[in-house]
């Protein structure tokens, strides 16, 4: 059974002044994303993918329109409440991995658990388990700069899922990886999606990566120009 997880209603984002017609990064986008989807925003550079993901993740606020997660309208939340929501329900994966350089892989994964009121032992257990799930038990105490790009992105995936979010947002997660590693990473994301039912929304401009998605939303010039589901 599928339920709506995410809903965008007439969402627009303008980075410039309101009357500056040219600076609409997202224009009047409406869409719904259900639980357990594995959805890709596809589009060329500058088309508005990152902006869409930021709006969905509550990292940025729309100029107009509504973003609803699990029935909650994000625009009604204070920035503190948005942070709470991200911490509890969302995970983030970035193109540049964004691991904290001075922490080991395992410590990076522990970070999202810090403010959840868990005991030290449980934090260790859950993050170790997450590192095992992404296949990094052997290098979990290494620093990011001692790891390959693929390993770093696996750490980032473990960090994004360790607190069992309902939505993981990944902005071009494979853009900094070679073809083979990119395929592995997207494969791993898909496995996690199947196993735990966590919804993935990611962006990419790589046709090969799009292949893995169950739904592809084509973004162009800040608008969704096509919506293809493939099961």
């Amino acid at each position, binding site marked *: 059974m599928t339920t709506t997880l995410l809903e965008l209603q007439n969402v627009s984002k303008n980075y410039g002044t309101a009357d500056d017609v040219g600076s609409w990064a997202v224009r009047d986008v409406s869409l719904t994303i259900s639980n357990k989807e594995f959805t890709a925003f596809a589009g060329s550079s500058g088309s508005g993918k990152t902006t869409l993901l930021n709006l969905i993740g509550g990292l940025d606020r729309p100029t107009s329109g509504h973003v609803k997660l699990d029935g909650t309208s994000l625009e009604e939340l204070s920035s503190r409440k948005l*942070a*709470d929501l991200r911490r509890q329900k969302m995970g983030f994966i970035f193109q540049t991995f964004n691991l*904290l350089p*001075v922490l080991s892989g395992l410590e990076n994964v522990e970070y999202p658990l*810090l*403010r959840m009121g868990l005991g030290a032992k449980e934090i260790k257990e859950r993050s170790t388990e997450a590192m095992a799930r992404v296949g990094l038990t052997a290098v979990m105490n290494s620093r990011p700069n001692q790891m390959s790009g693929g390993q770093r992105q696996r750490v980032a995936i473990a960090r994004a899922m360790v607190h069992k979010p309902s939505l993981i947002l990944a902005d071009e997660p494979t853009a900094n990886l070679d073809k083979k590693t990119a395929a592995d990473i997207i494969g791993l994301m898909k496995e996690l999606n199947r196993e735990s039912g966590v919804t993935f929304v990611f962006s990419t401009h790589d046709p090969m990566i799009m292949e893995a998605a169950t739904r592809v939303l084509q973004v162009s010039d800040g608008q969704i120009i096509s919506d293809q589901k493939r099961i």
Partner: protein
Amino acid sequence: MLTFRLAFRNLFRHKTRLVLNLFLLVGAFSAIVLFKGFKQYVIETMQTSKIETQYGHIDIAKKKFFNNAAVDQVIEKMVDDPKDLIDKLKQLPEVNIASSRLNFYGLVNTEDQSIPARFVGFDPQVEVNMQKHLYFSDGATFQDSKTIVVGAGLAKLLKVKAGNDVTVVSPTLDGGINAMDLHVQGVFNTGFTDIDNTTIFLPLVDAQKILDTDRVDQILIHLKQNEDSAEVIPKIEKLMTNPELEVKPWTDLDLMFLQVQNFYNFQTFVIEFILLALLVLSVSNTTNMTIFERLGEIGTLRALGDYETDIQKLFLIESVFLGILAVVIGIPVAYALAQIISSFNIPLAMPFTSLPIPLKMTPLLGAYIEAAVICFLSIVVASIWPARKGSHVSVVTALRAKI
């Protein structure tokens, strides 16, 4: 715990920046410790000289003495038979010595001139330490009766040297005139020109002979410890039977010394304030750089659900670690510097004293605490503003920066 680890390791990310910050902080820490230590040494040196040569820690005398009785009233400041009281004072455990003095004014006559002077008759057998604090530029201390030591400024006026003889003329207590020939044994400096330009020390017995009396006008009490004054005074008051006598701590008798202390305290305050301002400026400069280089990290942490205040806390903890590091290094560095500098014994001309004071530092726990407080304060003040600015940058903007 992880936050502390993160903060601690972040501290070492920029080695040169850390070294620069530590250099400044440890430098300021040491400067404060050294300056305060030296200030303390100067004050203690002057204080010791005042206590040993002029007042003792506590003085007992009649009101007329404390108020500088006019010449025709000197009889009214005289104390009869202080022996009893002195014996009782010596019984007090805090008291080191108790001794009497007789002060008077007279004329010093040499072959070609006659100059008024202040005479202090004291007991050289009891006030043994006193003479160590008279720095003799000529001659030496005296043991015999009928000998005097003359303040350097006064000696210059009189054109006398050790070995000369002078005649002292003074009214006796009952109105007659007395004269005595005295041998100049030495010329001294206390560093305080008010004494050095006016004063002659002589044995108490000779002073009493000149005034034709067996009375005294001042009882000095030297304590074993400088700090005891406040609690000893009530005990002393209980021992006293003569209601005309008053007890005063020496600090009540020398208002100039209070000004000396105020002067040095104000100077220290100004120097500390300047150091604080310099530290705040330079540390905030590097903190600013650090925070804007770490915008990517800030954006990432915000995306993971950190509040703005969590980011501020992280940077504040880093500052506190920097402070701890600075103090941990600062303590031994400042201590070693104080030892080394003190060992050179460099004489320095200081205000309020004509004698050079060696550049030495009194070790002072308070100076270390104050230096630590100033270091911490400056670091925290210096990081609050950049940390706030950094945490207020929008998540999206922050995330666009490289991590």
